[in-house]
């Protein structure tokens, strides 16, 4: 009997995937005249609590296309916003991600795929798109194993590149840098001696928690406990007692808002633990503050810090600051942190389309890979041979009066990334 519900879920997921597909097909614009249209897809979790974050990413993508008047080198750019999350999960769904990637691969006009937001979803889409030769630019994936040999599992990133070519690029620095920055912040600024490390058992969350643990060992921060939590548990009170009993003076959670980061924070505070709570960029969205509520995030309850692989919107300079200004004028609010990454991912893709002599997948892929000293919203950067950005500025943020508030920027030199 107990199995009945779980068995229903995949069916529901497939049904909703079909429903999304039908909707997407119905909403697709009528074919343009001639073949002078290139298509760009994005695949992001549009359903669920990441919605606010991904809406601003999509807005960023649209703004990048609008800036060029919807045309590159005489070719019209058509854009379609795909959803890889289902309401049943309230989180990204592997069936939907696979369906999105297949859809892009099969569309002859498709030359680029902007996504994913979740590293776990990238794992599914990467091999599909790599086989089809579609270039993929991610605004949000930070798990190192997707690109860096030796940073993840032994067979990573080879398994994501069945064609042998690098076809996946990202504009955001990876967790091997972010995890180290978080650890260094705990040691140097918070003067922590003993950390309790939790993770959500997902690719991204466990990945960054592993890096944190490794960096802790290197910098003399004792790790009192390292545990994967149940991301759907109703509360974490007993875990909090365990944390209290170890006397940890900082708690790090490798996980996302969708995987209950706010609940863990609330239970820590109501369980009488005031230790600083540090979490990575997967919680750097308004939904985290909303879910935690004002009590758990008040300064008296205990400090909260969020690391991020870049600068928050209001601290961007140059083109980035211009983007934030334009965004504010258009949408009436400061964009969420990843908006500028969506904007940058789309701009670098459009720039490559512009530079490519032939407007086909192979030429555009080669042009993206050849991106050097790109003057973008995040500064001037290049893609390295793995598809990673050379941009390495990180920031530490906190929450003040219900808003994210910038604490400090950390510029990790290129030599640090190991």
């Amino acid at each position: 009997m107990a199995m009945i519900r779980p068995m229903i879920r995949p069916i529901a997921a497939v049904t909703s995937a079909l429903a999304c597909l039908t909707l997407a097909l119905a909403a697709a614009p009528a074919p343009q005249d001639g073949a002078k249209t290139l298509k760009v897809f994005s695949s992001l979790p549009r359903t669920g609590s990441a919605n606010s974050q991904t809406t601003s990413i999509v807005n960023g993508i649209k703004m990048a296309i609008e800036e060029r008047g919807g045309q590159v080198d005489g070719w019209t750019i058509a854009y379609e916003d795909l959803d890889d999350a289902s309401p049943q999960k309230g989180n990204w769904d592997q069936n939907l991600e696979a369906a999105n990637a297949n859809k892009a691969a099969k569309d002859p006009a498709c030359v680029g795929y902007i996504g994913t937001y979740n590293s776990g979803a990238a794992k599914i889409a990467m091999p599909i798109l790599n086989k089809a030769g579609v270039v993929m630019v991610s605004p949000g994936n930070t798990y190192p194993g997707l690109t860096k040999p030796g940073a993840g599992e032994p067979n990573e990133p080879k398994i994501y590149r069945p064609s042998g070519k690098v076809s996946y690029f990202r504009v955001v620095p990876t967790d091997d840098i972010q995890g180290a920055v978080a650890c260094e912040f705990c040691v140097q600024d918070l003067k922590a001696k003993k950390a309790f490390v939790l993770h959500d058992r997902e690719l991204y969350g466990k990945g960054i928690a592993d890096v944190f643990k490794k960096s802790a060992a290197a910098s003399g921060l004792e790790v009192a406990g390292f545990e994967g939590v149940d991301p759907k548990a109703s509360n974490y009170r007993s875990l909090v007692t365990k944390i209290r009993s170890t006397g940890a003076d900082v708690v790090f959670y490798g996980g996302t808002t969708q995987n209950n980061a706010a609940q863990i924070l609330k239970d820590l505070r109501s369980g009488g633990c005031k230790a600083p709570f540090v979490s990575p960029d997967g919680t750097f969205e308004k939904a985290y503050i909303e879910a935690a509520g004002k009590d758990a995030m008040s300064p008296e309850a205990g400090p909260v810090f969020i690391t991020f692989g870049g600068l928050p919107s209001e601290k961007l300079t140059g083109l980035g600051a211009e983007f934030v200004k334009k965004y504010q004028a258009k949408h009436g609010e400061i964009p969420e942190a990843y908006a500028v990454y969506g904007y940058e991912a789309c701009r670098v893709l459009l720039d490559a389309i512009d530079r490519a002599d032939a407007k086909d997948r192979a030429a555009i892929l080669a042009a993206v890979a050849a991106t050097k000293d790109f003057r973008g919203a995040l500064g001037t950067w290049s893609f390295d041979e793995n598809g990673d950005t050379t941009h390495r500025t990180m920031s530490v943020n906190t929450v003040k009066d219900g808003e994210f508030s910038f604490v400090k920027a950390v510029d990790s030199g290129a030599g640090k990334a190991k």
Partner: protein
Amino acid sequence: MLRAVAAAEQLAILALARADGVPSFAADGTLSTWEVLSQQLVTGLSNGMIIALIAIGYTMVYGIVELINFAHGDLCMLGAFFALTAVGALGMDAWGGAGGTLGLVALLAATAVFCGSLNWTVNRLAYRPLRKASKLSLLVAAIGASFVLVNLGLFWGGMPMEVFSGGNSAAAPKAFPALVEPKPAFTVGDVIVSRPDVLVLCVTLPLMAGLTWLVRFTKLGKAMRAVAQNPTAAALMGIDVERVIGASFFIGGSLGGFAAVVYSIYNQTVGFQMGYRMGMDAFIAAVLGGIGNLPGAVLGGLLIGLVRAMSDGYIEARWTNSVVFGILILILVFRPSGLLGAKLREKV
């Protein structure tokens, strides 16, 4: 090496983080083995009481119509949304003192009536027409009802709730205000018994006592027991079977409503997906205790709560679900009718 760039205003925030001195973050490092155990017991009992309250709803319905009401957890979820909306609409988080206590009682009562009526309605619309159909059809109807309720929750979450807006996303978990502040009610050594822990006890114990009284000593209770034993015979004795079934759904649902409010205050989070986990834990508890048996559901709930706490505390959090299901399998293998499921089963 990392090069840190920090401005004065940001350093102020860091200073704030360290304001009460670095060692204070680690002040709890002195919990003794016994204190850890006692604290885990407190947590386990509180969680277990909430599970038990929901489990009663499963077991009552099963006892009378032999249906596993899979929609029950999701009914509780809707109860939590109802409570959140009521709190938001009335600005109740700002009510202090006696007004707060009175408001809390009113909130509990209103949510209980809401959930009871909803459960009664679900029974009337989805289950009653299938009374003569096979048990499997009834079960499928329950699963269908569960989906309908989940999606109602998703819709509800998307409605603008000005005061405690869950933001711009329907599916996002929403913060439930701490109507009972999560402060220690009293401490024994370093063991904290928080005010929400006390609330859980103050709500669940009288309800369980009341339910026992109702089933044992009232006319309705007698009728319920009669219908559970043999609906046909009960009808022949002049009992309005459908009315008794409806009453059981109402009572089971309203207990779920109480549980929803207590759960929301205890965990301070409401989300449309929470019903699944609430329902699953309670369902296991009901089966563990012997489904159809009221004291069994309470015993099962407490056991699940305690096992969860002990597993989180002494094994590892990621094994907890495996431990709970493992125990369920063992019980079903060696005592298929559950812990308190007697050979001569007296349902309800």
